[in-house]
């Protein structure tokens, strides 16, 4: 009886972490809305939101700024952070590698290649809609590595090591091509490709949100639904076999889902690093490695992390910095800390 009680208490604690993160997201969201060039107080943001919902707008200018400029950015920060951290948690668990992240299959380098081709094309050819061509190209190219892994799986058995190695190889090949493009590009094109690479949320509008939101909700739900299989994968391929899970198929299916989900956000934002790597590790410190709790915890924590990072990004520098830089600067020391901790006492596993 006592054991059961303990277990339930532990589980409640884990869900409490998820809930806490969710509440903090709600608070941070208002904070994110109040930050910017045009000063709007913390409490005013509440008022504006409520007024917008109820329909009697008293200050149309502030309403426009909060609802049409800041709210989509903040919401998208939550979505992107959640997707990346969730993807990272799944990849780390499934490939049994603490250094895996959603970009391990080469999604980011594919997206970068697609985007840079689109940027170079748009500087030479008149395209009807530069923004969307870039997004579509980035999305298409970012799925190439996953397709290569799928094709490879028809010929030979795939293992987690092979997937990581294929991902690295694809990354190298793509980045060789990107290097060539960037070297031969004009100064302005280079600057544009470079800033795409860093990853920013500043370009977000309401039009940006629906597609990635829909894709990530569907994919995220499927992943959470598959949590048992992903859990089993952590025990190794042999144990997975003996527990009635086909490891190869599971890896392929989940990887495709993660790639799709990651590609859907990356093609809008560029590659924002470290959320997918560090987010799951921090969530793991609080809730442990059971993916039943880890996946939702990683998702909410990732959302919170990127939302706060974006707040920091907007206040730093003269006109704000891209969020990718901030998340790297916060993420790196955290990553080193986690590494040291991993050596001391194995938080992993």
């Amino acid at each position, binding site marked *: 009886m006592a054991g059961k009680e303990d277990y339930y208490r532990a589980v409640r604690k884990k869900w409490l972490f998820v809930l806490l993160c969710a509440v903090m997201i709600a608070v941070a969201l208002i904070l994110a809305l109040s930050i910017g060039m045009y000063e709007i107080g913390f409490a005013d943001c509440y008022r504006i939101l409520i007024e917008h919902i109820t329909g009697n707008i008293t200050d149309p200018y502030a309403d426009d700024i909060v609802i049409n400029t800041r709210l989509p950015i903040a919401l998208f920060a939550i979505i992107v952070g959640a997707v990346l951290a969730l993807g990272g948690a799944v990849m780390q668990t499934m490939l049994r590698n603490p250094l895996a992240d959603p970009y391990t299959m080469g999604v980011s380098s594919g997206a970068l290649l697609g985007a840079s081709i689109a940027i170079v094309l748009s500087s030479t050819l008149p395209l009807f809609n530069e923004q969307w061509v870039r997004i579509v190209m980035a999305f298409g190219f970012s799925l190439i590595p996953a397709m290569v892994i799928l094709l490879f799986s028809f010929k030979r058995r795939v293992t987690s090591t092979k997937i990581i190695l294929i991902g690295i190889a694809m990354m190298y090949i793509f*980045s060789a091509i990107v290097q060539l493009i960037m070297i031969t590009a004009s100064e302005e094109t280079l600057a544009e490709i470079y800033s795409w690479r860093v990853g920013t949320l500043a370009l977000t509008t309401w039009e940006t949100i629906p597609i990635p939101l829909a894709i990530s909700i569907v994919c995220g739900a499927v992943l959470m639904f598959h949590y048992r299989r992903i859990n089993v994968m952590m025990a190794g391929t042999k144990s997975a076999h003996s527990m009635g899970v086909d490891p190869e198929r599971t890896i392929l299916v989940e990887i495709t889902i993660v790639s799709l989900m990651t590609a859907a956000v990356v093609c809008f934002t560029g590659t924002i690093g470290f959320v997918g790597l560090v987010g799951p590790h921090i969530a793991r410190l609080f809730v442990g490695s059971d993916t039943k709790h880890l996946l939702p915890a990683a998702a909410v924590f990732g959302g919170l992390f990127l939302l706060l990072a974006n707040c920091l990004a907007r206040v730093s520098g003269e006109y704000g910095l891209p969020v990718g830089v901030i998340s790297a600067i916060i*993420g790196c020391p955290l990553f080193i800390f986690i590494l040291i901790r991993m050596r001391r006492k194995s938080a992993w596993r």
Partner: protein
Amino acid sequence: MADVEIRMGKEEYKSTLSRKITFLLICLGVLIVTTLISCSVGTGYEFTKTAQVIWDHLTGVTYPIRSPDWWADYYIFNNVMPGVIMALIAGAGLALAGTVMQSMMENPLADAYTTGISSGACLGAVVAIIMGFSYSTVISGAGIVINAFIGSMIPAIIVILMVRYVGNSPSTIILIGTALTFFFNSMVTLVMITASAESLQDAYIWQVGSVTNASWSDMPLMLVMTLASAVLVQLSAAKLNIMSLGEKSAKSLGLDVVQFRMLCIILTSVLIASIISFTGIIGFIGLVAPHMTRYLVGGDNKFVIPGSIIMGSTVLVVADLISRSLMSFGNIPLGVVMSFIGAPVFLYLIVRRKSQKDVF
């Protein structure tokens, strides 16, 4: 009977030995020929003429000033050869460092930059190029070199210090190296993102690595470092062989693993820093050259070390040759050519890798 068998074994060993030595000599020959070809491409002089001019120069023959031969000599020596020779030395040094790292880390995917040296150098150089800030009083040229050198020492020192606290296993060193690379890269990004378009381009070109601006005065430091390290590493080839057996075996064979590893890291760090601070970060050569050599001469470091020095130089000289031949299509630096050579070779290495060791 037994006596005969032993003699057979000995003879067999000797024959493979002589085969390997012959092979190394052939590679050396190929390297010399490639270098000469590379010196003559794009100059407008024939191959034999170039060889003649270089030979004459080396043997001290002088031509009357402003005669056609004098111009040929002047042009080849001051405009073409510095780049070629720099590619040669850089290839040798980086391949050597890569060999040491791979044996030391017991990891076939380690390369010269595993400890994060390249990203530190990159930060130093980028800071000099974009912000005009330098540790020395000179801003351009020498300032970039000095900055890159000091910058590349920072991650090396951090690795050496951190290893004391978090453990000395190869995987720890690789992890710390990875983390430091991430960190310095994000600092580089931070600097680059604030840069104007022109200085961004300069910084990016530096990052990719090229030898187009080489001059003779850049050479002495990297030449001395490469030669000295080559001699030292060759002398400790037996120790490296023991290291690649794994830490436990090495310890039981009487090698002070921790000390030796530290010495290797310090040596390779200084070597790599002295090269990349002049050339920028040329990727893949430290990864690919040792593998190609091992594929051809086997795993004994006594042969792998000279072999990969020669192989590295050859590959980089060829890459430089390709990059200069492509000049008419646009300025494609050595580093880009090297990525295009290196990435497929890397893929090939992965595909034919037999053992299923974890990467990290």
